[in-house]
């Protein structure tokens, strides 16, 4: 039980407004520079575009002032900056594609998705007054999450794009339901683990100085493991599989504080992946393209070869330390430069310097999220905020690690940067949820009073989620 010296919390909305200025300047400035570099003039719609982006950011800011005045002031500016840089890059890639005689309107659509994402995030902030409400839907979330993950396997609905069965097609549009699935599953994991954490934390046999859990408690992790292996094998997507299992293991560790779960989880995943890589050809091919990327046979092989990965590396190398500058590189030489490989595109034109700055942006975002988790008082909120912050960071790791050949390449996309509606919507919802939780984390317990204890004030194990619990926490807070 940690105690904290009382201090007065500043809401931070003015700080947020001040930080939004450079964030917007980065996005709109990048957009203008792309136009200047490629066409010699400012983009024709620069005013409308700038106004739109500023409007969206300020709108979100006002919603925060109204509904979550104590929300973390850094999260929104970081996300606005990342989203803006992504838009500029996608606009730049559009220009490159059009120059090669290909029709390309990714930027327009991405702008529309951004707008939709901000609206959705605002709606979440307005409608969800207390994140603990979500705990009521623990088991609904479980069902919804499983359905979302398995949706691409439904015949006629699922679509196989580049060998991965992680898309669904609806009315001419494609979605990656797993993107929304990760939020829903985080709700389930948080709700489930906050209830069962005490049981799961019970000590089992001790092996090599590691306190193992009781064998009978291994059920949930085995289930999650099987589910993620099913994703790997059935949907042929290492990324989604890795993401879900990583999220589960991280949240299991948060809930139980037992390293043994992490060790077991890592062991299970590595074992499963190795097993799958020998048993299933598509997984073997992925590993082969990773380990022997520069082998000419592997490079030339299509599909399933390392051509895209190596071309991405060529792009990154071309960028070097300082990059070619907006519009001066050749990101269009890498397949899917606007989505899966936007990191390579950014690395080429902004250089190592720019890419490190972008990575720092994500690191700041993840750390603010984790700080929120530390600050919030209820166990569900801690687990949920911790899990979602981790999942954003982990997704970055899987994507950038894949593109730079640190780990095998997966079909995941970079949050906020990459082209893709489902990803953008899901990540804006995550931002809204983190902002919502951070509001309650940073809000003084009572107006003018000292903040409540920062130590977790958990509801009793197995307590039914709902109103009753909320009331009890409120009582605790007022005390």
């Amino acid at each position, binding site marked *: 039980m*940690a105690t904290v010296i009382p201090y007065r919390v500043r809401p931070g909305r003015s700080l947020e407004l001040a930080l939004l200025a450079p964030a917007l300047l980065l996005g709109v400035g990048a957009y203008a520079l792309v136009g200047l570099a490629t066409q010699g003039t400012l983009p024709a719609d620069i005013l409308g575009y700038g106004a739109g982006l500023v409007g969206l950011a300020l709108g979100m800011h006002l919603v925060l002032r109204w509904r979550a005045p104590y929300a973390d002031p850094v999260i929104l500016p970081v996300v606005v900056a990342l989203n803006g840089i992504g838009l500029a890059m996608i606009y730049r890639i559009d220009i490159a594609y059009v*120059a*090669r005689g290909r029709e390309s309107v990714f930027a327009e659509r991405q702008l529309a998705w951004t707008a939709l994402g901000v609206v959705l995030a605002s709606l979440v902030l307005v409608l969800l007054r207390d994140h603990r409400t979500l705990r009521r839907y623990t088991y609904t979330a479980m069902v919804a999450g499983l359905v979302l993950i398995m949706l691409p396997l439904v015949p006629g609905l699922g679509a196989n794009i580049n060998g991965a069965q992680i898309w669904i097609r609806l009315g001419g549009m494609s979605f990656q339901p797993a993107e929304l699935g990760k939020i829903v599953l985080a709700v389930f994991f948080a709700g489930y683990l906050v209830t069962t954490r005490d049981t799961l934390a019970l000590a089992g046999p001790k092996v090599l100085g590691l306190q193992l859990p009781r064998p009978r408690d291994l059920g949930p992790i085995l289930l999650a493991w099987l589910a993620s292996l099913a994703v790997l094998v059935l949907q042929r997507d290492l990324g989604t599989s890795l993401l879900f299992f990583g999220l589960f293991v*991280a949240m299991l*560790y*948060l*809930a139980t*504080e037992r390293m043994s779960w992490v060790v077991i989880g890592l062991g299970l995943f590595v074992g499963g992946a190795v097993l799958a890589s020998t048993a299933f050809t598509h997984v073997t091919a992925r590993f082969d393209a990773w380990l022997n990327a*520069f082998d*000419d046979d592997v*490079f030339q092989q299509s599909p399933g070869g390392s051509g895209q990965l*190596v071309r991405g*590396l*060529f*792009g*990154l*190398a*071309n*960028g*070097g*330390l300082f990059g070619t500058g907006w519009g001066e590189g*050749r990101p269009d*030489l890498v397949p899917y430069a606007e989505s899966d490989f936007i990191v390579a595109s950014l*690395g080429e034109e902004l*250089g*190592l310097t720019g*890419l*490190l700055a972008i*990575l*720092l942006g*994500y*690191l700041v975002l*993840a*750390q603010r999220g*984790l*700080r929120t*988790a*530390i600050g919030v008082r209820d*166990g569900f909120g*801690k*687990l949920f905020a*911790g899990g979602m*912050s*981790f999942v954003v*960071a*982990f997704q*970055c*790791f899987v994507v*950038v*690690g894949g593109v*730079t*050949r*640190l780990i095998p390449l997966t079909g995941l996309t970079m949050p906020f940067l990459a082209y893709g509606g489902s990803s953008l919507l899901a990540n804006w919802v995550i931002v809204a949820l983190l902002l919502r939780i951070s509001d309650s984390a940073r809000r003084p317990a009572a107006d003018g009073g000292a903040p409540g204890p*920062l*130590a*977790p004030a958990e509801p009793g194990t197995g307590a039914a989620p709902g109103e009753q619990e909320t009331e009890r926490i409120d009582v605790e807070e007022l005390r």
Partner: protein
Amino acid sequence: MNTPLRRLASVVLVMFLALMVSVTWVQYGAAPDLNSDSRNVRTLYREYGNARGPIVVAGESVAYSVPVDDAFGYQRMYANGPLYAHLTGHYSVVYGRSGVERAMNTELNGSSDSLFLERIQDLVTGRQPQGAVVELTIDPVVQQAAWDALGDQRGAVVALDPTTGAILAMVSKPSYDPNVLASHDTTAVNEAWAALDAAADDPLVNRAIAGDTYPPGSTFKVVTAAAALEDGLTPASEVAAPVELDLPQSSSVLRNFGGSACSPSGTQSLADALRISCNTAFGQLGLDLGDEALREQAEAFGFGTALDVPMTVTESSFPDEVDRPQTALSAIGQYEVRVTPLQVAMVSSAVANDGVLMTPHLVRAVRDQDLEVVTETDPEQLRRSVSPGTADALTQMMLGVVESGTGRAAQIPGVAVAGKTGTAQTSAEAAPHAWFTAFAPADEPRVAVAVVVENGGAMGNEATGGAVAAPIARAVIEAVLR
């Protein structure tokens, strides 16, 4: 739950540090390797995206880049393509570079270290960077004369300025049009390349410096004569010139051209032996001198020396291990003696230049886009091949060849031309290669030339160096002395 959250925050930090190391490795550590990977089309695009410098002959661009509206940005063009094809080489999106395009690539694309100051200047002034201008030593009139004189025959012509080593003309036939390979239409380029590559007469090969190399035939007698003179003989020294030379340790005999006698007495002067190209006399000389002396003299003329002019020249060679009969054959430029036409021209140029062999070179200067000289080639002495006395004696002997010997077809009224013919047997079935090498004017040489016409050219089996190659050399000399 705060302790594991803090630990998780550390894990996230470690993950991002790993990513930063990984990104740094790709963009900085491994970048040079990745950038030079042959599969990296960016390198090509980057090259094409910059204005590549022209290759200039006497103030005219024979290779230049023009802006075009496609993915590459610039199209390489060749004026008078086939005439200069083996000098400029080709510059292809698909098949890379050859010739000067390859040898001077870093200058032409502006990335050479010597252009560092220019790049800084461009950066500061904001001027569009451009590759350097590469100026060749070629004299277009001489080049054209050599081209015309060689006609449709397979072969090569090299003309040097003996006092500087500057290459005045270099023609190899058959030739090709590098414009076809420079096209951005990869299908067309692939087809053209396949046809050129499959052609039996190897149009892509620069026979003057990088062909399969030829047996020099009797032109090698200049080298043998040089060795003999350096050994103490004089042009007037009587040497044995039998009708048949029995080759020791073997049953074969060496005969003269047409089986004739070189002299009724069975001996003749060294000068006469060279004048009428007496095989038996030079075979016997070779036996007397020994293979070591011949090899040393050949190397003094540049055999076995690695040369980049700046294109890499195939080394000419005198065989390493020879027995006595092979020595006799080698002395008349047969057996396994192999030369490039450039090497033969170098022999003449060394004789012409008082025994001093100048380093042959094709690039006169590299200039920046303001035509300021960046680097200039200074004439350089490669080595002394023979003493001035020997050079003088050889000159007199070679004058005799053109005046009243086998090389009369190279006579130019009012000009003292010194030369030597050669008719090199290749195999029993094929017609011999016709050779001629010469320099002129003998007292103040301005050009040294070598001509080879493969398999007798238009005359086939009837061909001799004097009949087929000498007139071509004369045309080249006339063009220089115009």
